[in-house]
């Protein structure tokens, strides 16, 4: 396969909060503006725009892509919006990558925005309509259930304990204390997680990321532009994405096959043969505590059933051998759905440039992976980046 080399050259984001006064468009504009300023580029230098935003039901406004196009700098430019549930954020850089890698455009501004707070009494209600309208909706499922259902299966198959998995929340919320945009950075203990309100056993409140408003943007450029714009381009060396079956009750949920399929594609493109040795830093999708572990296994960064050991051994701490979610993840920074996924890409960008401030992992990491997940537990989106 022949394609052009593509780099991330800039990134920006808003603070993540529970209720933002700003409109979705204003959030998108803030992030896009900061991303362009970070690489001293102007909107006139942007050839195309890739927008990610989750269900229109959050906003109660259809054609969200159209609403976000101008705030994202897309006036009279080729604009594309995608939505694959929680996988959207990483899908958006993949779309942008295609724009530039294909040779169609030299630059692309990727903007992901989410404003969940407009939906009442709780945005969770908007998720009812992702389930099959005839065979599942009458049971009145909530998104929490499918996570709890998956977590229970994951724990059952591997013999993981809740008190082990809770360490993910402890780690990520602590990491988030060092993130200037974080909504929920905190020093907590395993006991705090176990004693927090039961939402849907095995999921307690502190196992769950918050609902959030926020936006993130990155700037992509073809090699000849990237080298002019910055001394420190971060190369998008591999991308992969896949969709598993929507018949989610038919798949054994203990293992995310779709993440493995997407990761294999991304690793192959990046020439990675031994992911756990060649990848130095990872931002797997962590909307729930167990999800970080589930995805580490799917990303083949540890053996199946080996993620808890890695966590207990401190490997995934910011100063461990494979720092995982050094940003603070969705559990700590927040979870404005699509923006949260792109936040992970931005974190890898900053980490590989040595610009992550207090969050900087030691040892000059050279290669990172960001991954997101979504829809009916069926989407895997993976991107491999190198400096």
């Amino acid at each position, binding site marked *: 396969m022949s394609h052009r080399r593509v780099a991330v050259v800039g*990134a920006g*984001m*808003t*603070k993540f*909060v529970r*209720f933002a*006064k*700003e409109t979705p468009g204003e*959030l998108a504009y*803030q*992030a896009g503006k*900061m991303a362009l*300023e*970070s*690489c*001293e580029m102007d909107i006139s230098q942007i050839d195309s725009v890739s927008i990610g935003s989750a269900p229109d039901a959050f906003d*109660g406004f259809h054609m969200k892509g159209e609403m976000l196009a101008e705030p994202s700098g897309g006036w009279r430019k080729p604009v594309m919006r995608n939505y694959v549930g929680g996988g959207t954020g990483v899908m958006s850089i993949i779309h942008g990558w295609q724009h530039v890698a294909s040779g169609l455009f030299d630059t692309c501004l990727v903007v992901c925005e989410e404003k969940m707070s407009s939906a*009442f009494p709780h945005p*969770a*209600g908007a998720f*009812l309509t992702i389930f099959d*309208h*005839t*065979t*599942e909706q*009458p*049971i*009145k*499922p*909530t998104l*929490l*259930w499918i996570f*709890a*259902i998956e977590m*229970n*299966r994951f724990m059952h198959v591997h013999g993981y304990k809740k008190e082990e998995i809770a360490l993910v929340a402890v780690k990520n919320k602590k990491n988030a204390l060092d993130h*200037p*945009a974080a909504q929920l950075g905190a020093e907590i203990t395993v006991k705090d997680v176990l004693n927090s309100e*039961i*939402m*849907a*056993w095995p*999921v307690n409140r502190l196992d769950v990321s918050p609902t959030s*408003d*926020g936006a993130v943007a990155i700037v992509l450029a073809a090699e000849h532009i990237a080298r*002019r*714009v*910055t*001394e*420190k381009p971060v190369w998008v060396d591999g991308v992969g994405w896949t969709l598993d*079956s929507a*018949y989610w*009750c*038919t*798949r*054994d*949920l203990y293992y995310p096959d779709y993440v493995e399929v997407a990761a294999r594609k991304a690793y192959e493109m990046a020439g990675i043969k031994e992911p756990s040795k060649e990848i130095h830093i990872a931002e797997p999708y962590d909307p729930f505590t167990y999800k970080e572990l589930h995805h580490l296994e799917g990303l083949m960064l540890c053996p199946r059933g080996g993620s808890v050991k890695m966590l207990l051994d401190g490997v995934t701490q910011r100063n461990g051998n494979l720092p995982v979610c050094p940003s603070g993840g969705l559990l700590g920074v927040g979870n404005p759905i699509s923006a949260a996924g792109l936040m992970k890409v931005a974190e890898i960008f*900053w980490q590989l440039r040595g*610009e992550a*401030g207090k969050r900087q992992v030691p040892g000059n990491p050279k290669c990172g992976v960001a991954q997101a997940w979504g829809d009916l537990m069926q989407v895997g989106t993976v991107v491999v980046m190198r400096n």
Partner: protein
Amino acid sequence: MTISNKQMTKEMIEKTVTSLSREDVIGNKVITSKWEPKLQYAWDNGPAIGRYLAELKNGKLIAKKCRKCNRIMIPPRMFCELCWRPTDEWVYVKDSGTVNTFVISHVDWKAGRLDIKGGVRPFTPAVIEIDGASEGMGILHMIDEIDPQKIKIGMKVKAIWKKPAEREGAITDILYFKPR
């Protein structure tokens, strides 16, 4: 040629958002415009789920088989998503199965809290692998008539149906599954 190295600072980030409280929004301390949609839909269910619903009304579960991969699939479907070819014969399966995984939920679909302390039984939804369908073929349904703490993965369960006259051709014609 510009070489940039502008790092994101706390000050830059703080300026991006005005953080409100729930009271600001609900109590109209900031001006909000509100809309409560009352949309209605009538969903046609096609030949596969249409037959599934008709059989539920009869107190039966029906699946469909793909002769290529030999899977007996529930809910039934007109095409096999793996082989991407039309499915073949209809196959009745049992109204019993095995708990593949489950939840003890203290919240409803809107994240509203159930009054557990007031004695409300938590919702206990589960993926139930249906006997007679291919291994691992599950459906989402509720479990009841058991202490939620005693539900186990691997537990055998059977469907409890609405009375025939009360059935309407819906997945809720099965009230729940209970241990057998």
